[in-house]
């Protein structure tokens, strides 16, 4: 471990494309640094996306059109990541509260006049259709990190309460859409910030105990389909053709894949449509069926590499805001991966969370990549200290 000195930063101190001290663009690593790209992180992400495209091609019934759709989405998301990477962390910090407030306003707008799609009100049409809840995935950790930036951590109880409100308001607004998966992720991203900021274990334990009656209250607020998902998890065989069907079929898909899988595009569970939502939330089962244990372990390893690199960037970061934000983004990604794989393998209830960077769909892809753009920005805008 190196010794850490006091670091203060200004906008003018940060490197930029046009700064006179910018690294030369003669070498590959030089180009990457000048573009504020973190090579290992980009490499990990591209590998995940590439493996994902293979699986997706099979899952969408070998449709080139749908595959190209996804390729375009990945491209757009990577551009978004590169753009965000150019924004200095200070800039991202100063604008965090405004972005957060704007996000809240949009969430209220969604509930009052949003478009209904698939039984939920998630979309807002402002020239382009988009989901404000997606923006809040970054908005909440940025806001909480901003709040803690100037304060001594660990935060005391009063500050924790204020942060809890910051997390709870968007979480409840999104849960009301209803979008259980996203609201859970958003709550997690905020909670991760507090935990990383050093919330005492005693308090966490206390909250965990308090969570029991809280869960009971939550149960009463849950929609019927959400309750059903929890009940089905406990005993999927109780309703084999109804709510338990997804889990049973995805377990059959994964289990029948065995060690090395049935081979690419040869998964009968996926191809014969036994597996529902095989190109979205349940795509992990397609991977398991066609590529076996070897395939799923490869993907999980790639994911863990991305998370690890993110945490490394967080540890390397020079200020509280960057640290907490980078940590939260990395670990939220980790929660993403865990919740999806755990639900597809039947460990946790089915909440609608896609497998990040692999599932078909574009909205969450852009948010995820923008998050990695923030990581890259944080890492590449550090003022490198001579040792």
């Amino acid at each position, binding site marked *: 471990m190196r010794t850490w000195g006091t670091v203060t930063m200004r906008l003018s101190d940060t490197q930029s494309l046009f700064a006179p001290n910018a690294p030369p663009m003669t070498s590959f690593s030089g180009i990457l640094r000048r573009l504020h790209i973190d090579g290992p992180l980009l490499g990990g992400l591209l590998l995940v996306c590439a493996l994902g495209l293979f699986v997706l091609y099979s899952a969408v019934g070998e449709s080139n059109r749908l595959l190209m759709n996804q390729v375009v989405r990945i491209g757009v998301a990577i551009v978004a990541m590169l753009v965000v990477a150019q924004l200095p962390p200070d800039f991202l910090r100063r604008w965090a509260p405004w972005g957060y407030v704007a996000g809240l306003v949009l969430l209220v707008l969604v509930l009052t006049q949003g478009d209904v799609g698939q039984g939920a009100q998630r979309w807002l049409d402002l020239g382009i259709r988009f989901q404000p809840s997606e923006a809040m995935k970054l908005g909440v950790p940025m806001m909480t990190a901003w709040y803690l930036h100037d304060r001594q951590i660990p935060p005391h109880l009063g500050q924790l309460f204020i942060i809890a409100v910051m997390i709870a308001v968007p979480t409840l607004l999104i849960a009301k859409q209803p979008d259980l998966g996203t609201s859970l992720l958003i709550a997690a991203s905020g909670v991760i910030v507090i935990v990383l900021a050093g919330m005492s274990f005693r308090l966490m334990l206390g909250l965990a105990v308090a969570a029991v009656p809280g869960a009971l209250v939550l149960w009463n607020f849950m929609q019927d389909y959400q309750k059903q998902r929890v009940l089905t998890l406990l005993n999927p065989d109780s309703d084999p053709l109804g709510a338990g069907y997804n889990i049973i079929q995805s377990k059959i898909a994964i*289990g029948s894949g065995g060690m090395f899988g049935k081979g690419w595009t040869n998964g009968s569970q996926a191809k014969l449509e036994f597996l529902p939502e095989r190109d979205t939330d349940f795509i992990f089962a397609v991977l398991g069926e066609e590529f076996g244990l070897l395939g799923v372990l490869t993907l999980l390893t790639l994911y863990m590499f991305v998370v690890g690199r993110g945490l490394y960037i967080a540890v390397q970061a020079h200020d509280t805001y960057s640290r907490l934000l980078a940590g939260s983004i990395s670990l939220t990604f980790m929660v993403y991966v865990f919740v999806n794989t*755990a639900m597809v393998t039947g460990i946790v209830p089915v909440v609608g969370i896609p497998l990040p960077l692999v599932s078909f769909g574009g909205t969450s892809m852009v948010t995820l990549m923008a998050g990695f753009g923030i990581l890259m920005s944080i890492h590449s805008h550090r003022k490198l200290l001579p040792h």
Partner: protein
Amino acid sequence: MSALLSPIKDVHSERRLFLARVVLAIVISLLLMGSVVARLVQLQVVDHELFAEKSQGNRVRIEPVPPIRGLVFDRKGRVIAENLPAYQLELIPEQVEDIDDTLNRLAAINLIEFEDIQRFKDLSRSGPRFKPVTLKFRLTEEEIANFAIQRPRFPGVDFQPRLVRHYPDGDLVAHAVGYVGALSADDLQRLDPASYAGTSHTGKTGVEGSFESDLHGDAGYRHLIANARGRQVPGDSSELLDSLPVDQVPAPGSNVYLSIDLDLQRIATKALEGRRGALVALDPRNGEILALVSAPAFDPNLFAVGMSTSQYRELSENPDRPLFNRAVRGAYPPGSTIKPILALAALDTNATSLTRKTICHGYFQLPNDDHRYRDWKPQGHGAVDLHDAIAQSCDVYFYGISGELGIDNMHDYLDRFGLGTKTGVDVGGESSGLVPSREWKKNNFRDRDNQRWYHGETVIASIGQGYMLATPLQLAAAAGALATRGERYRPHMVAAVEDPLTGERRIAQPERLVDVEISNEFYWESVIGAMHDVMQGPRGTARAVGFGAPYEMAGKSGTAQVVSIAQDEEYDDAELEERQRDHALFISFAPLDEPRIAVALIVENGESGSGVAAPIAKAIMDAYLGYGDDAP
């Protein structure tokens, strides 16, 4: 806000705290992912076999393949029943959002009837959601074209090619061959479910019904790769098909060759057009039925294709009862057609002699009774012997000998000719008719007064009236027994059954029944000679019909007072009157010495056996013996 303005922070402790928390997060992350990995190992390694099996069971489905129904041919090898590809309209419940609405819109463009909507709704609810419900079995080309344009408006409704039973000659063979109809719940109880898996229709009546087990064949099955909705996956996913077990090919149904001659059917049908009646022609030398017609008939294709409710109602509520097979089920008073048999009985029992004469004044009276039993000819026939009594159909002669003959002898001889019992023909639903006797009356009446047999009843029985009933088939068989001078064969319609794969034929052997024994051979010739004179003698009742024919024939007319077989129907007065007219009957055979064909027929309310029925019998015999206008 700038970092420069931020309060003094303990940067070192913050770093340490953060690092510790990141380490904690990594540990928790590894634990969580470890649990997922453990789960994956459990599913993919430990329980792999179990899930591999489940996955296989998921996708392989056994589907029955219905056999192809055997064909039916006439005696000259012409097709009577075949299977034609036809497009049928099907609805797949799971693909239809609003079944009610879809059915209503189909009815609005006249593809189905509004009345049937409820039936189809029930059907679509009863089976698996992926199983198609047939809305219409055969679409016309116009309907196909019409629907093809509108198909986008009806998701889940489509037309599919199927083999449909087809009777090219329609109503010509309706009552002989019968028809197939959609399997009913009762059929499913009765039939072997393994053999009928995948079959939609079964023989209901006629040969189609009684030879069902030959015609149907046995179902095979094939293994399918089925998708999650249970439907077969299109063939291009062939790599999945490799591991499938071997299929079982269905055994096709046997072809059935009938003794029926379509030409005779056509002539008889045409002759009976616009009338109610029936005709049976058979070969007296072996019992082969050459023609079996009941009029009016119906189009058996309607049953094979499936009828709308209103179409069926029209058939079943028609006062002419086209669905009723008069040839084998219709029991009519045989009238004078039984006189030749009674003449033989009287000669054989010495109740009369060939020389005995009776003076016919036009009526007959029993001793001590005022009641006059009238002859059909009010002024009488004058002096008649047995020959004249048959040729001129003198009732009084038979009234006169009835007392000596007695009802029990009558019953005995009529029974020997097969009247009063089912012939055992190879199509179902036969009626046994009725030949009364003292015994019968005692057993079938409650009231003691009615249990007694009265003399008067014997008198009218001697001209085939009263309780006596016979079917056209029985009369044809009896005519056959007269023609052969007592040799009897069981009437049958199926001549051979052929295995379509090997071409091997099972020929139906003629089944000889107990002969009618008459003590003196000459009695046969006398009675048959009299029957010959009916048609070709100078004073025969049907001499106008037999006059100038190039071959010798025998016949006997009959006229029967109406005992209406139609029930509970309302007629207007004109119709009522028409339906109270006498039935016209005729039996005949030819050629006289070596008979090859025997015919019996009835024309309901036809009034005159010799005038209306005899020409039809003659036309059939002409055609069969090669003298007809349109003889082949």
